[in-house]
């Protein structure tokens, strides 16, 4: 569900063969577009391709560089922020340790021979344990953030307030905001640092890959074949929650083994009732008032482990 009737367009990877311009045309967005490329980190301003693709009408908000300015100008806050990030990393480490054991238990249960009703019950209980752990981790992250916010009230600090005022002005003057992919944790961090969500109300949004993940309620890290062995999908943190009821899974064409039914079933059941959506390159959809339209090439993963193209309403 979308907070207002504005359109939010989620897209697959834009690096090669982008579809962003097409989506903007479809919505009749003709004016300036603010871009957020903070997920690219130091390469944030290497956005020539994006600017050219959108017809030289973009204004890069440079959130990564602006954060560096804040950290330079306000070292006390920088140190506190760094300490909070270390705390969040610890939480993530411990969550991952516990999660791997829960997933291992689920794997063992799945392969046991036992009466069907017992197996079904134990399997449900095992999935519930994983869901509980996911929720617990989200709560811990939320506590860390809330404590930090209460203590530091950072949006009121001079260095940040100054940057926020500039950002508010820029965003206020554009027709839409486009949020690129990249490092999702860093992107989320910068979006939160500047309280960007406050300025997005009513704006048409375009977001792809990590950007699309950041707009959802929960950011799920996933990769079925990392070099260190089978990867376990893990909850990173809450997203901005501007798009509800879905889990965004970009680059699904090479990150998810869709034919491994048991594996994708576990994933879909873990995050239900949210719907897991694989978003390969060139996929996209428009979300408006809890309805999908202009759906292209999105893969919906069902709780029984099957997958099929996502159906959407016509525009």
């Amino acid at each position, binding site marked *: 569900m979308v907070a207002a009737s504005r359109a939010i367009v989620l897209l697959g990877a834009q690096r090669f063969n982008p579809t962003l311009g097409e989506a903007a045309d479809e919505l009749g967005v003709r004016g300036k577009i603010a871009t957020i490329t903070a997920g690219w980190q130091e390469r944030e301003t290497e956005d020539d391709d994006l600017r050219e693709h959108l017809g030289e009408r973009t204004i890069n908000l440079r959130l990564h560089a602006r954060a560096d300015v804040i950290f330079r100008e306000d070292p006390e806050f920088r140190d506190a922020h760094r300490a909070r990030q270390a705390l969040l990393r610890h939480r993530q480490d411990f969550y991952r340790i516990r999660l791997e054991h829960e997933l291992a238990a689920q794997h063992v249960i799945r392969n046991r021979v036992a009466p069907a009703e017992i197996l079904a019950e134990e399997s449900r209980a095992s999935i519930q344990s994983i869901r509980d752990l996911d929720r617990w981790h989200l709560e811990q992250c939320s506590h860390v953030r809330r404590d930090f916010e209460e203590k530091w009230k950072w949006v009121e600090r001079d260095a940040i307030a100054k940057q926020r005022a500039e950002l508010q002005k820029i965003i206020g003057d554009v027709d839409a905001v486009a949020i690129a992919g*990249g*490092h999702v944790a860093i992107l989320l961090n910068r979006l939160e640092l500047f309280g960007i969500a406050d300025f997005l109300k009513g704006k048409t949004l375009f977001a792809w*890959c990590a950007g699309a993940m950041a707009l959802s309620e929960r950011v799920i890290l996933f990769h079925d074949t*990392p070099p260190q*062995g089978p*990867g376990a999908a893990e909850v990173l943190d809450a997203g901005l929650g501007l798009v509800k009821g879905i889990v965004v899974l970009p680059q699904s064409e090479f990150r998810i083994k869709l034919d491994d039914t048991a594996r994708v079933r576990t994933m879909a059941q873990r995050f239900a009732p949210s719907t897991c959506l694989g978003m390969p390159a060139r996929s996209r959809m428009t979300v408006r008032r809890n309805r999908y339209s202009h759906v292209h090439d999105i893969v919906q993963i069902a709780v029984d482990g099957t997958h099929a193209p996502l159906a959407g309403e016509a525009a």
Partner: protein
Amino acid sequence: MIAPLKIDQLLKAGPTKSRIDAFIAENKFPIVQGEQATFVFRGQADKLILRHWIYGLESANELQRVPETDLWHLTLDVPPRSRVEYKYEIHRGSKSKWIEDPLNPNRARDPFGANSVLQGEGYELPEWTNPDPEARPGILEPLKFDSPTVGERHGHIYLPARFRRSRQYPLLVVHDGSDYLKYTQMKTVLDNLIHRLEIPDIIVAFTDSSDRLREYGNDVTHAHFVTEELLPELQRLLPLIDRPQARGLMGASFGAVAAFSTAWRYPRVWGRLLLQSGSFAFTDIGKRNHRGPLFDRVVEFINNFRDQPTAMSERVFVSCGVYESLIYENRSLIPLLETTGMEVKFVEARDGHNWENWRDRLREGLSWLFPGPLMFVYE
């Protein structure tokens, strides 16, 4: 239906000179057919012996000469994905010498020279060991350090591409650093794995010892040097993350003993250990292992650890080749490590005690100990 061995086909057809010429010209050697490998040599000799380093097989296997020819051959069972290093011991008159296989261009180099390499069916040289033109290269800077306890030391520091002093990096200290650089292409491996986001930007200290058998075999002075002298100096010079999770030690053979025993002497300092084919000799009774007095201090250390296993680190990656005698010691260590609460990953390979085995395990080990941002980057 199993295809007949090519050597048998030649022998059945009648090994005339022209047929042998064609056989040599048409095949790659050793000839790998499924799980069988045929070693072939052509030349004058009185006796020819295959020398290999597969623990569990006879280390000397005689090749048979095809009567009235200069062709020699031997067929052995070699499981898929194996890598076997070997030489020929050629006897002529009263003299003998070890030579590399002149029909096989594959070589593995090490500090003692080079060996020929048999690559079993399914073995592939990992592509991430080759330079990737898209991977931005890090830089190697010479490291010179005057230690109050062990004297002047040299080595190299690897700094990742895009190194910035304003950032903080994990640190990995590598024993036998120059050998790792030379024989495992570790700089190329680091460049590639960082480029692929499989490991983070990382600083690596490649260190050497002038007397490794003494210093690496459970030596208190060495542990002191690494932890109380080298580490603080690196922390002073470089922007390092000050957490055990971001500090690793690694090594192979005696270098693995050095890493393990250093971490044991300084628990909770080194949060990541990469131990390859560790010379973890121990005894169940008595103090002298069959490997000899060189291992006495190693035996003392491993026996102590076996008596009282303790968590000195957080994550330990152990690898070993199944064709090396140390596989027994390494397999024996794993359940003990696991009892301590440390996270342990053990990987076996059909390979021996050599640098290419250690090279081939680097990706799995490094990415498990220091996971890169692969799970975080979606673009």
